[in-house]
């Protein structure tokens, strides 16, 4: 096999006395005294190119620049270093992105399916008959939203937010007040209100020293559910005028109020109070007030963000 390179490396071969049975030194290899091929990636690439270029009698113009480029062991090393640098860079970027936006945690909130979305939307509009609001756990980790209707998800809030911005643009368009900048304005103002809410609630949770497993993303998910009601109200307002808007918005406000109270009660209040047993004590009362305040803020914001869209 080694002597098969005679065509390619003829000039170099003659350096070695024919008596000695050593492998032919190939320009692609680093060490001429190696008894076996070095099949590490960079070198074998160089080796293959050398073979192909030499063995085929390929038109010299096209092949030889590459052949001589990959010839040089230094450029093999450079290629290997460059690819390892790229891999290292990619790792670094992934690690840093995971620090700011926890992608794996986000994937949990998007583990939904159509049945869950349908039932959750029904729950948002009519939460009065639902009995069990407890989130199921499976060995300390909450179950994916697909399997438990009480678990928060981010698909509905995200889609509802985008739909709200588009419906707002639609509503303004029917009143001849539309221009594409307004879409951006609506989106950023709604986002600003959401951020304000999240910060305010996190601050008050901190001040009341509540020991809860309510994460920030959970909170964003819960606060995003009100956009569904807002969309319903605005659409009805477009179809049936102010009467329709007020009716549907009123209904959605009450529903989201009840929904938030029942969901947050389990998260913020202690076990005893969650079961409906009234517990005396300043701490639980404070938590109760906090829950009520959060739930009452939702209808207010729903009205504030939509009343200018319906004339």
């Amino acid at each position, binding site marked *: 096999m080694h002597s098969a390179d005679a065509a390619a490396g003829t000039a170099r071969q003659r350096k070695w006395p024919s008596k000695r049975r050593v492998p032919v030194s190939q320009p692609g290899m680093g060490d001429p005294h190696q008894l076996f091929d070095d099949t590490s990636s960079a070198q074998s690439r160089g080796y293959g190119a050398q073979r192909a270029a030499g063995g085929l009698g390929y038109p010299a113009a*096209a092949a030889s620049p590459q052949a001589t480029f990959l010839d040089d062991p230094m450029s093999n090393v450079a290629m290997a270093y460059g690819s390892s640098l790229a891999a290292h860079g990619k790792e670094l970027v992934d690690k840093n992105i995971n620090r700011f936006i926890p992608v794996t945690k986000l994937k949990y909130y998007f583990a939904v*399916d159509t049945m869950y979305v349908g039932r959750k939307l029904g729950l948002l509009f009519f939460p009065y008959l639902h009995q069990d609001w407890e989130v199921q756990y499976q060995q300390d980790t909450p179950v994916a939203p697909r399997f438990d209707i009480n678990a928060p998800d981010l698909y509905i809030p995200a889609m509802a937010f985008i739909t709200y911005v588009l419906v707002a643009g639609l509503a303004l368009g029917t009143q001849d007040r*539309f221009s594409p900048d307004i879409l951006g304005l609506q989106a950023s103002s709604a986002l600003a209100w959401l951020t304000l809410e999240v910060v305010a609630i996190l601050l008050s949770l901190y001040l009341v020293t509540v020991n809860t497993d309510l994460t920030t993303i959970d909170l964003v998910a819960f606060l995003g559910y009100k956009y569904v009601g807002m969309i319903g109200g605005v659409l009805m307002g477009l179809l049936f005028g102010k009467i329709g808007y007020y009716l549907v918005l009123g209904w959605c406000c009450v529903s989201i109020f009840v929904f938030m109270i029942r969901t947050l009660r389990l998260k913020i209040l202690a076990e005893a109070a969650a079961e409906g047993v009234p517990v005396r004590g300043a701490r639980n009362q404070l938590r109760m007030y906090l829950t009520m305040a959060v739930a009452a803020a939702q209808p207010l914001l729903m009205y504030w963000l939509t009343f200018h869209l319906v004339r």
Partner: protein
Amino acid sequence: MAETVDVPGDSGTGSPRPLFAGLSDISISQDIPVEGEITIPMRSQIREFDSSTLNESVQNTIVRDLKAVGKKFMHVLYPRKSNTLLRDWDLWGPLILCVTLALMLQRGSVDSEKDGGPQFAEVFVIVWFGAITITLNSKLLGGNISFFQSLCVLGYCILPLTVAMLVCRLVLFAEPGPINFTVRLFVVIIMFVWSIVASTAFLADSQPPNRKALAVYPVFLFYFVISWMILTFTPQ
């Protein structure tokens, strides 16, 4: 074959020789040709292909790329179960379509602010950020389609809406009126449905069946926005 070295078989006579001592004395016989070639066809073909696309004329490159784009247009216009769009994705087609759409949709002059039509950059931003948002949503839902493949599919499926834009532009040369509007509405609705069907044929396959509707909804919103912009377009 190499000449064999005679190793003394008997163990009793003389001093024991070290192992492989005579190996260096083996020589290759001069009169038996052992030359030849070992080629690696695959590798050489790859090399050949790479270098030849660098050296070909510009016209060849452009014609080849245009043919690829045209082939994908055909796939969009007649949506079948094939994964040509997915396998060799490219972003030339979406760029051409987006620029065409934006050029046709932009309002005439900057002075007429009250008109409400989008500027060139606004259409561009809406199309590309909408496509990126849909792709992110699809990936978070757990689809097994890559980022650029999804952008490619969404971009190519704007083709029916671009055709609708051309038709609307032509129809608007006739006298304005309710018939005019009805015709335009009809054309835009048909092309909108066609876009959604075309993109669903590619995108929905990448999701498990209990999530297809969830992935299709943002696509519906995206093409709805573009159709709305096309329908409400009025020339100066």
